[in-house]
């Protein structure tokens, strides 16, 4: 459709004036002619209505399912008012708040995100976001190495394969070695003895997750933190922040660095992105200096009024270039604002309630699944949060097929007979009963 561009590109009638003002007609003359294009590329321009029809036709090829897949992507309900807040034009159409005097809204909102997350993880310093949990792990490994000047990073064998792949990418070229430590086959708990033996003078950091990728908590996290710290390494803990409504925070047991995923606190899952990587540290000037990501701090203006600014920017790439603590520039600010609005809405009581609800509902699910003939759940003797492993006589593929046929999507496969199921606040009792019904029916047939 001729003219569609005019909706986004003005000055159609003023182009001539502008060209003659600058005194030249070919403003691309500096591009060597051999590279210049002489034909237009791309499809036929579409009007707004045509565009919408085009996209909606493709969307029809998706099918909505009740999914029990998690793996860091937790499909929580997002209250309407949180969506309305992040749809505010002044928020979503702004850039990184480089000019603080005119950007107090975003800065205060990010400061509040940092503050709310600090309360949850129990550490006072949280950056204003990283891309996701996985890249936060990569950054944590790099930071541990920078801080300790050591080059080994220990992770649990039970780590999510996604996170493991990202971690490897992040450390691959800077000479950090990844070492893994196993877990007890009954309790799933990280093998603290093996860990004690593994740490050495090369250990930059020890990472563990709680809840783990398999869904249960480490019951003695302070021991793991201590092993790391005793070896002169930093302890890095990966969490689902929602679990901190029930269980001790990493701050409670002295973790140095906390990472995790917070997208599910106020953001839809969006097919896996954007996410919201948490990165928190102890109040330690040395760690602070080495920390990746943006920080918003409180200060005062020339009239003495409180105000907010991006601070400690000297760590960042736009100032320190190749010696920066990270290359991160664009982060996930708006997701952090959503998270702040969501957490303030839940409040102290609501956060604890929701944390417990997830835990209770997950228990309802694994108890009922575990009671089905031919199924075992959960698989370790430990306290679980939202995810749990299900072992079945039938293969995961057979189970998945049966679930797909009624519009459900089962757990994330671990091996041929094991999958990790996930419960969020969107699952109803009926959903889980239906899941169990399919599982039960599977064995009968």
């Amino acid at each position, binding site marked *: 459709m001729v003219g569609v561009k005019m909706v986004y590109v003005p000055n159609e009638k003023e182009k001539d004036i502008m060209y003659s003002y600058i005194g030249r007609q070919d403003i691309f003359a500096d591009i060597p002619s051999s590279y210049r294009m002489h034909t237009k590329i791309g499809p036929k321009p579409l009007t707004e209505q045509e565009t919408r029809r085009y996209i909606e036709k493709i969307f029809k090829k998706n099918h909505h399912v009740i999914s029990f897949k998690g793996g860091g992507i937790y499909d929580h309900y997002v209250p309407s008012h949180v969506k309305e807040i992040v749809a505010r034009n002044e928020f979503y159409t702004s850039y*990184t708040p480089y000019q603080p005097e005119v950007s107090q809204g975003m800065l205060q909102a990010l400061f509040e995100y940092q503050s709310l997350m600090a309360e949850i993880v129990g550490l006072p310093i949280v950056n204003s976001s990283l891309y996701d949990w996985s890249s936060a792990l990569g950054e944590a490994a790099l930071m541990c190495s920078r801080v300790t000047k050591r080059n080994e990073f220990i992770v649990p064998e039970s780590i999510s394969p996604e996170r493991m792949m990202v971690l490897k990418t992040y450390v691959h070229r800077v000479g950090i070695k990844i070492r893994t430590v196993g877990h007890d086959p009954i309790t799933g708990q990280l093998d603290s003895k093996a860990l004690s033996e593994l740490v050495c003078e090369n250990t930059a950091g020890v990472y563990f997750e709680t809840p783990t990728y398999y869904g249960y908590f480490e019951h003695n996290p302070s021991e793991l933190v201590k092993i790391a710290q005793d070896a002169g390494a930093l302890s890095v803990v990966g969490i689902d922040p929602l679990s901190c409504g029930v269980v001790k925070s990493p701050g409670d047991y002295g973790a140095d660095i906390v990472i995790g995923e917070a997208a599910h606190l106020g953001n839809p899952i969006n097919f896996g992105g954007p996410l919201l990587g948490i990165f928190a540290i102890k109040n330690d000037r040395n760690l602070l200096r080495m920390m990746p990501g943006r920080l918003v701090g409180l200060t005062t203006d020339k009239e003495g009024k409180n105000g907010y600014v991006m601070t400690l920017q000297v760590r960042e790439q736009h100032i320190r*270039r190749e010696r920066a603590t990270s290359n991160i520039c664009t982060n996930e600010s708006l997701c952090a604002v959503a998270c702040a609005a969501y957490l303030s809405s839940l409040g102290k009581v609501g956060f604890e309630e*929701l944390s417990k609800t997830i835990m209770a509902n997950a228990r*309802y699910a694994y108890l009922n699944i575990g009671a089905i003939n031919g199924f075992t759940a959960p698989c370790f003797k430990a306290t679980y949060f939202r995810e749990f492993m299900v072992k079945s006589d039938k293969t995961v593929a057979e189970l998945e097929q049966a679930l797909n046929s009624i519009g459900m999507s089962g757990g994330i496969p671990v091996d041929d007979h094991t999958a990790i199921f996930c419960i969020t606040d969107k699952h109803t009792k009926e959903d889980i009963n239906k899941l169990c019904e399919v599982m039960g029916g599977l064995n009968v047939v």
Partner: protein
Amino acid sequence: MLYKQAKNNEAMIFELSREGNRGYISDAPFGVLPDIPKSLIRDSPPILPELTELDVVRHFIKLSQENYGVDTGFYPLGSCTMKYNPKLNEEIAASIDVTSHHPLDPEAFIQGNLELLWRFSQILCDISGMHEVTLQPAAGAQAEFLGAMIIAKYHENNGDCRDEMLVPDTAHGTNPASSAMAGFRVVEIPSDDYGQVDIDALAAAASKKVAGLMLTNPNTLGIFESKIGEISNIIHEAGGLLYLDGANLNATLGQARPGDMGFDIVHFNMHKTFSTPHGGGGPGAGAIGVKSFLRDFLPMPRIFKDGEHYTILHGAPYSIGKLQSYYGNFAVLIRAYIYLISLGTDISSVSEMAVLNANYLMNRLKKDFDIPYLDNTPLRKHEFVISCEKIHKDTGVTVMDIARRMLDFGIHPPTVYFPLIVKEALMIEPTETETKETLDNFADILIKIKKECYEQPELVLGAPHNTTRRKLDMVKATRNPVLSWKMLKD
């Protein structure tokens, strides 16, 4: 008439807390809590503030009014391409089709999403002249890191040990930072009198140690690197790869393709070139396009079209692995895709007007301001850089003061102090979505402020006067970092 920003004097959200208030209540549990070992239980829940839904809404609405976005005014922040974010894209991105799928759900249930990603990557290939595109990077910087990793992997794969990355002195800070993260030693290449890569210096630096060159073209002076053919030859003859930092792609969309210029790797920023909103710092989304000889190094997962069906490839022997979880920032990518299919062949009018706007505005200002390299290089692409060094010397007013003074007129200032090779730099990128009137108004204001610098410097030095906060104390924030309510309380 001067602009005045709202001042709502909004307290910190913790201060608004009142016991017993609730802003959102989740469903009651249907299960029963397991017995939790006492040692595991948190002593008291996190002290989150307690507010009603109204309290939360009012708080953040008030905060939003104290923020400045493209939708509230002109935002010529150089190198950030703060163009208009079309609202159709926002509406579709908020629809359940975009928001509600899990990335690991069965292929058969997510064919629409896979098709959109696949089609989008095809369009990016067409636009850039590259052969395959990955949409995984969460942002431009992560794309750069990926590009650097692909360069590394390529040489590793050839058994070729190269540890130097060449980066011009006009480059964005992310280039050296990303190179360093990928284990490279950064070698800076100076600019010549034309504001372009010094070819001799480049040739001298191009050794067998060189893994590649990360080039921004047009560069951060807004100048097109006209000797790109020569540059490409030098790098390739040295066995290196040529990487395009695509931050400035808005300038050449539909006019020329990096693939044709010899670039082996290109990165794209959705939130710059393709109009997705920047969200106050993010989320954005990046992409990397490569020539076919590099496609095996792309990260997992990759999406392929097989007849009418779209499939996901989760592993491949030479892949660099993964950069972040799953497919990238889907909700951002979809906006960019909608933008592109809507404009279609009109994409070239985007670059035309972006460049025309920049050159028009530069010409409006050239009598009153110093524009480095202008004599040798009279054309700019999407942006241009002014030096306020003389004003600074004459009056003591810095370019940062000038930037702050612009706020009083309801305009977001351009980027300051960048690129580093221009003193007291003001880097202006109007974008194509702004009208001539907006540009004229901007020019008038900048000229007026220059006059103020000489006649009433205290006015400029005391700026801003009309924003939510007056000039903020950056030093205090650094010396005594208060980074959370927790730190403030303690």
